[in-house]
Structure formats: structure tokens, C-alpha cells
């Protein structure tokens, strides 16, 4: 390895920088793509925490009563009022998609091309239905309840801005994840990873998807249940 690095370093100063930073100094014994995905998810953790902390701060500092999420997000079906029903369905949808994703990773390492790609497509479909339900929820809140980022008739004005910022950013992550999963599913289906010799990329996509589910766990607890 060290000899290789010196051979690469020869052509110029920038190659030397690259080889100095990269050669023979591997700290993590995982594929680099996986290590980089973890670093990205770490940075994303900081972003989502900043949003949730900002939400905590405005909710603590407002003197106006905070709208009761249990009532705001209730569904009325056949004369019954069911608190948080849609949010519960969204939560179960996302958990189910995390389950199918874990199975896809597992079948990937078993080199089962067909099952892996089908499970990835199933995960993407569940993710897409989550985004669909979120669109329904946003429409209900904006059109029926009159919630806006700058105010709402239910209580503290900061409710709208926190809600749209946090769930919007999460929804954007789910949407990006659906596209990411479909691209990966297509590559699995066409035998790209069989030719490459490893299905490790499926696990990296899985890390991203499980993270999206992980963030929802915190949003569900702090925004909807608190």
C-alpha cells in the first residue's frame, strides 16, 4: 500500500495531497460509501436537531396557548373523532417500509436479485404513500383549518412555522429516499450489483431509509404527542 501511494504521489503536488490524506490510513473497516453515508447522516442529525430545538424554544417562550396536536390532527370518521389517527397510520406505514428495507438488505447479501429489487420497490411504494398522506394532512391543515406559517386560528402563531418546517424537511427526505430507492431497485433488477460483485450499496441505501424512519420517531414524539 505505501509503495502504491508513493507511485501515485509522483506526478504533482495535488496528487501528493490526495495520497497523503487517503493512503494506508483507513480508520473504518467498512466500505468507504458506507462510512460516508454515516457521516452524512450524522450531519443530518444535527440539522434535524436544530429544527426540533428551535421548535422547543418557540413553544417554551410563547405566552399564547399551543394548539393541541391531538385535536388538530384528529380524523372524523362516521361521527367518531379519532385523535391522531392519520399520524398513527403514517407511523405504521413508515415502520413497515423500514421492515421491508431491512429484508431487502438481507436478501441483497444473499444475492437474491429478484427478491431484493421487489422489496426495494415495496419500500419505495410505502414511502410514496407516506408522502401522499402527508400531502393530505397539509391540505387539510392549510385549507380546512387555516394554518399558515405566520399564524393560525387555533393558538400560538409559531405552530404553523414549526410544523411546515419540520414535517416539510422530513417529507423532502422521504421523497428523495423514494427516488434513491427506485434507482437502486432498477440497478439491482438489471444485475448491476451482480456485475460489480457486491450488494453493499443496497445496505447504504438502507441506512438512509432507516434514518428517515428514525427522524420520524422523534418528530412523532416531540411534535405530535408532546
Amino acid at each position: 500500500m505505501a509503495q502504491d501511494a508513493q507511485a501515485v504521489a509522483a506526478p504533482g503536488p495535488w496528487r501528493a495531497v490526495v495520497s497523503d490524506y487517503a493512503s494506508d490510513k483507513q480508520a473504518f473497516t467498512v466500505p468507504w460509501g458506507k462510512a460516508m453515508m454515516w457521516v452524512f447522516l450524522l450531519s443530518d442529525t444535527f440539522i434535524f436537531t436544530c429544527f426540533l430545538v428551535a421548535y422547543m424554544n418557540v413553544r417554551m417562550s410563547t405566552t399564547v396557548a399551543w394548539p393541541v396536536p391531538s385535536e388538530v390532527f384528529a380524523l372524523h370518521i362516521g361521527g367518531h373523532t379519532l385523535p391522531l389517527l392519520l399520524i398513527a397510520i403514517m407511523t405504521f406505514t413508515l415502520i413497515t417500509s423500514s421492515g421491508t428495507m431491512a429484508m431487502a438488505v438481507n436478501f441483497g447479501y444473499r444475492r437474491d436479485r429478484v427478491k431484493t429489487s421487489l422489496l426495494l420497490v415495496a419500500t419505495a411504494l410505502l414511502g410514496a404513500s407516506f408522502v401522499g398522506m402527508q400531502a393530505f394532512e397539509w391540505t387539510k391543515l392549510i385549507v380546512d383549518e387555516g394554518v399558515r406559517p405566520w399564524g393560525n386560528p387555533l393558538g400560538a402563531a409559531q405552530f404553523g412555522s414549526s410544523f411546515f418546517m419540520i414535517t416539510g424537511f422530513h417529507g423532502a427526505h422521504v421523497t428523495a429516499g423514494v427516488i434513491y430507492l427506485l434507482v437502486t431497485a432498477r440497478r439491482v433488477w438489471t444485475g448491476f450489483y451482480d456485475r460489480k460483485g457486491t450488494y453493499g450499496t443496497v445496505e447504504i441505501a438502507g441506512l438512509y431509509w432507516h434514518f428517515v424512519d428514525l427522524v420520524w420517531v422523534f418528530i412523532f414524539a416531540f411534535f405530535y404527542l408532546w
Partner: protein
Amino acid sequence: MSQAEVQQHPIRIYLWIWLLLFVLSTFSYLVDYFHLEGTLRWSLIILFMLLKAGFIVAIFMHMAWERLALKLAILVPPLCLLVLIGLMAIEGKHTFLTRLGAFIH
């Protein structure tokens, strides 16, 4: 990559965790459904949240089987967020009291 670095585990583990996440989500939903209040409410919400997050990271994201070097690199830095949470909680409380004073007078 050697065999040890491939995350290959029995499917049974995933199915159990999947079921467990369903049960825990149902519990946290029931906290709201039965209108639990006060300390009981938020301690249960946080307990179920941390359990769910822990199982997702440890099993679904395979962190339990990674080497300690990677675990430390990913799991330790978020701890400094606790400082941010603490500071912003103090600040939020202060703003609340300031507003209360300003609105009364």
C-alpha cells in the same frame, strides 16, 4: 471486504424488531389516546421514543455489529447537542418570563 464485514444476519431478528417497533408505536399512540398527563405522559413518550430509536439504529442500521471505532465516531458527536438543548431551554424560559413581564405592565 472480508466475510466479517458483510452484515448477514438471520431474517428472524428483523421480523422480531419489526414487530417490536409496531408494539412500541402502538403504546406511544395509546399514551395520547388515554389522555395521560404530566410526568407520566412525557416520561412514557420519551421511553418509547428512545427504545424505538435504539432498535432502529442497533439492528436495522446494523450499528450493534459494527466495530467500536465506527460506533464512537457516529454516536458520540450528537451528545454535544444536549448542550444546545439545555442552553435553548434556558433561553426559552427566559424569553417566556420576559414576555410575561412585558405584557402585564
